[in-house]
């Protein structure tokens, strides 16, 4: 199957650069990263001065500030997030945190047209006599992941470099390490969302509707889990039905918790891939 996937992927550059959904995803992703980069750049002085007073944020927690984002951070109690601010440029840390928060919206858009438009235009009927459905499913999943990695890593790198110049990071080497760590954390974090969209594409032959269903389901489970848990802690269960649950474990420097995150990525991804292939290999096209 490896050779088959490689052959399918050989057409992906042509398909991707002519696919309006993928082009839109690239533009929106770039805009998202650039806009938060600009926002942070403008608020750089306030953020730097706020953080200069509490460098050991993991011990003292986030302080009050006039900068809204720092206000939001005060509610983020996860130790993995707090540790992100230790020994790194606060601008860079906030940028990565926002990148992580926005990633699902972007990655689901990037991955929303794996087989959808080919099913609706029935171009798939020209392909299927030549490839296995499993091979096509896996190749398109891999293709979406490659696009996601390209978008996220280039954006993170370029905006990160700029923010490092205007931040007051004490340790530049440590910031570079953090940047590369964030690049591959985002790359891994995107996998279950791409698998989710591959699964949805097997029964929704429209990229936009697939995106709506993916983000809609994700939002509903998130609201049920987060808001519901205010009412009863049992609602927290819904949070674990969506891949967002692995976000902070992946960010963690605690090896055990990090491995839990990686296991979560594998679990969600394999689950979506299994059911996706199951449906795709049996559905009429």
């Amino acid at each position, binding site marked *: 199957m490896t050779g088959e996937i490689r*052959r399918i992927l050989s057409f992906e550059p*042509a398909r991707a650069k002519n696919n309006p959904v993928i082009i839109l995803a690239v533009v929106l992703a770039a805009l998202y990263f650039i806009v938060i980069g600009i926002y942070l750049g403008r608020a750089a002085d306030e953020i730097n001065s706020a953080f200069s007073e509490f460098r050991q944020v993991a011990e003292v927690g986030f302080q009050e500030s006039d900068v809204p984002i720092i206000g939001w951070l005060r509610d983020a109690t996860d130790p993995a997030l707090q540790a992100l601010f230790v020994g790194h440029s606060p601008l860079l840390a906030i940028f990565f945190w926002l990148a992580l928060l926005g990633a699902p919206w972007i990655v689901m858009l990037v991955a929303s047209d794996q087989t959808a438009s080919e099913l609706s*235009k029935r*171009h798939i*009927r*020209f392909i299927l006599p*030549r490839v296995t459905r499993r091979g096509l499913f896996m190749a398109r999943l891999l293709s979406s992941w490659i696009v996601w990695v390209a978008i996220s890593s280039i954006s993170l790198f370029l905006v990160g470099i700029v923010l490092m110049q205007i931040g007051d990071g004490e340790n530049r080497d440590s910031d570079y390490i953090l940047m590369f760590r964030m690049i591959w954390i985002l790359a891994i974090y995107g996998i279950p969302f791409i698998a989710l969209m591959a699964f949805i594409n097997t029964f929704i032959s429209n990229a936009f509707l697939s995106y709506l269903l993916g983000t809609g389901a994700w939002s509903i489970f998130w609201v049920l889990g987060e808001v519901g848990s205010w009412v009863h802690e049992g609602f927290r269960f819904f949070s674990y039905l969506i891949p967002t649950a692995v976000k902070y474990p992946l960010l963690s420097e605690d090896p055990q918790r990090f491995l839990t995150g990686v296991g979560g990525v594998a679990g969600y991804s394999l689950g979506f891939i299994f059911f996706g292939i199951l449906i795709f290999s049996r559905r009429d096209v």
Partner: protein
Amino acid sequence: MNVLEINRLTKLFNRVAALDNVSFAVPEGCVVGLVGPNGAGKTTLFSLLAGFLQPTSGDFQMFGEDGVRLLPGSGALSILPQDARFLTQIPILRHFIWYARLMGFGPVAAEAEARRVLGTVNLLEAGDKQGDQLSHGMHKRMAIAQALIGSAKIILLDEPTAGLDPAQARNIREVVRNLKGNQTVVVSSHNLDEIADICDYVVILDKGKVVSSGKISDLTKQTAKVTFSLDAAATGEVLHACQALPSIAEANLSSDRKKISCIVDSQAIDNEDVVTAVVGILSANGLSFTDIRKGSTLEERFLDVTDGGD
């Protein structure tokens, strides 16, 4: 040797049978025509054979192996699907090179193969056109060309000449004729003259069932039928007189009353006395014939076995 054997293939859509226990075999190297009225199940059958649809029951064997398991990615079968579209904004040549690559061609060989099949349908110069720049006829011929990539052993062509002008249709018929012997081709069409022209065998479907199949020459021979084309409309008296002849089992008038078909006892078909007797009746009633044909055309056979003959 049969390259394709279809066994009791059934496909239900919302509990309605689009195909109902369809069985027939396709010999190697021949051209088989698949005909039937609209909704007879021809496209459904092609879609099942190509793996686009999953059968509700039944199976098919290709080269003696389970078709459903052999098919995916094997390149053993290619198809002209009726409603598939190429991707917009990507040149057709680029599509074809990719299709060839998927079938195992190397980069250079894939481009050569793509150009070969474009040349086969006289569209070599149009390879740079994008999917959304093709006219209907051009798209149809491009879709036929993609089915020729890689010389699959079985080629399914779903209405290959529908919507083509006469010159293009002739080109496609020539392409199909040239495939005969090396590849096995199954062609569906509403053009029965075309089927009779290019096919060795025919399968007639109606309401999802095979109502007739066999060699075209056998189906149209119909030795028990003699048809007289008349120079004027016949009366009921002529019909009754023909029906009264001892060797004629049944006689019918066409709707315009200018054709009289006599079903003759098979032993009497070569007996010129039957023809002489009918000619005598015609002449006694002031009629003469312009043509006598023993046996039926494929169209008549088709109308006989489908509801079109009602």
